[in-house]
């Protein structure tokens, strides 16, 4: 794997709190990585530091091997769209023109078609846009920039499901034609899961999971059936979640299953079901402190 972004020992203290705690992670070039985690996990801080908009207390960030801070050459190859993007006293058209001048690979044609997709009014002041429209403007700039590193931080606040799917479709189609490194932070894991090649998950300022998305699918299994049979089966495995109802029990295990494990299920005593990516991510969030490393597929 060739990293486009390389983060080493990144620490950020803010008002006595550690928002980033020794974060080290590589973001693969040319791939789409999902940055997941609860609010306050440190996702935005990490992206802001990568984008050169905030400084670390310790550690280093390299984008294409160079520090992004006040480095024009790196910054022009990187676009960062934030949920709470602030624009100066701009009309929509001015914001697009400014972006077109800054980003060397800007596509005016693509920007126009995205403007039409989201029905954005060019002459309206950015301040007067609704929350959803402001998100859409961020998406237009983020995608039309065609920057080698595209960072989107919860880019769709206020957008409805239809508009979000327009975003997914345009991102996929354009990414296929013009490959780039995409880092997307999102709460909507279920919606965005198919787009992601890699998943990096943060919790309380640390990386708790860093894996290929497809390695996570099917990495955990839900075993259910009679209590005794489930307990006998799970004795050999790490259990993440266990619930019981009457004589039935259901447990989520994370170790990979061998053919020997599947035999009892086939004879009908136990049911084995794969655990979905979004469920897995949720378990990882709940279990983060003690499962560091073990959840990495």
């Amino acid at each position: 794997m060739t990293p486009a972004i390389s983060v080493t020992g990144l620490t950020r203290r803010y008002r006595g709190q550690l928002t980033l705690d020794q974060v080290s992670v590589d973001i693969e070039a040319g791939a789409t990585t999902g940055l997941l985690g609860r609010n306050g996990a440190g996702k935005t801080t990490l992206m802001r530091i990568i984008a050169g908009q905030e400084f670390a207390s310790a550690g280093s960030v390299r984008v294409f091997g160079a520090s992004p801070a006040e480095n024009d050459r790196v910054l022009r190859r990187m676009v960062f769209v934030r949920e709470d993007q602030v624009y100066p006293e701009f009309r929509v058209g001015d914001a697009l023109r400014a972006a077109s001048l800054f980003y060397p690979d800007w596509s005016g044609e693509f920007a126009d078609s995205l403007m039409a997709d989201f029905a954005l009014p060019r002459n309206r002041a950015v301040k007067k846009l609704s929350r959803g429209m402001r998100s859409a403007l961020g998406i237009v700039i983020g995608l039309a920039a065609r920057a080698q590193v595209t960072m989107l931080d919860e880019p769709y606040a206020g957008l409805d499901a239809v508009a979000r799917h327009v975003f997914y479709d345009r991102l996929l189609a354009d990414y296929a034609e013009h490959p780039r490194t995409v880092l997307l932070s999102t709460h909507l894991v279920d919606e965005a899961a198919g787009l992601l090649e890699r998943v990096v998950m943060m919790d309380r300022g640390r990386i708790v999971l860093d894996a290929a998305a497809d390695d996570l699918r099917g990495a955990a299994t839900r075993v259910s059936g009679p209590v005794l049979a489930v307990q006998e089966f799970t004795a050999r495995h790490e259990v993440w979640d266990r619930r019981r109802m009457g004589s039935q029990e259901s447990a989520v295990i994370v170790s990979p299953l061998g053919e020997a494990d599947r035999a009892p299920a086939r004879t009908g005593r136990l049911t084995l079901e794969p655990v979905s990516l979004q469920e897995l991510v949720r378990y990882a969030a709940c279990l983060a402190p003690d499962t560091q490393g073990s959840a990495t597929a």
Partner: protein
Amino acid sequence: MPEMAGLDEGAPLFVQVAERLSAEIADGGLAEGERVPSSNELAAYYRINPATAAKGISVLTDEGLLEKHRGIGMFVAAGARQRLLERRRRQFTERYIEPMAAEAARLGIGTEELADLIRQAGQAREGATA
């Protein structure tokens, strides 16, 4: 999960893409010699990452079920359908017969009775399609 046009989150997506294409070839939906959708077309249809779609295609290429015609795309290889049907036959016992026998045992249906039920179902089907 509606976002991914019929794929689910329980198994690696590239495996599911490979399985979908295999099923289409086995059912004759994709004929031998026919061009298969490109990774970008599959990515747009399933709303998945193009790299994931490409990985699904490469599974079938590695198995010799698809072949690359440089500059044009991927095509269903000769003999692919036959090979997939043979594979499905081999999986038939594991996928259908064993779970059925297990359920029959739970319900107290003996082997003879089970064989009768299968025969009846088969005859009804033959009668319906005759």
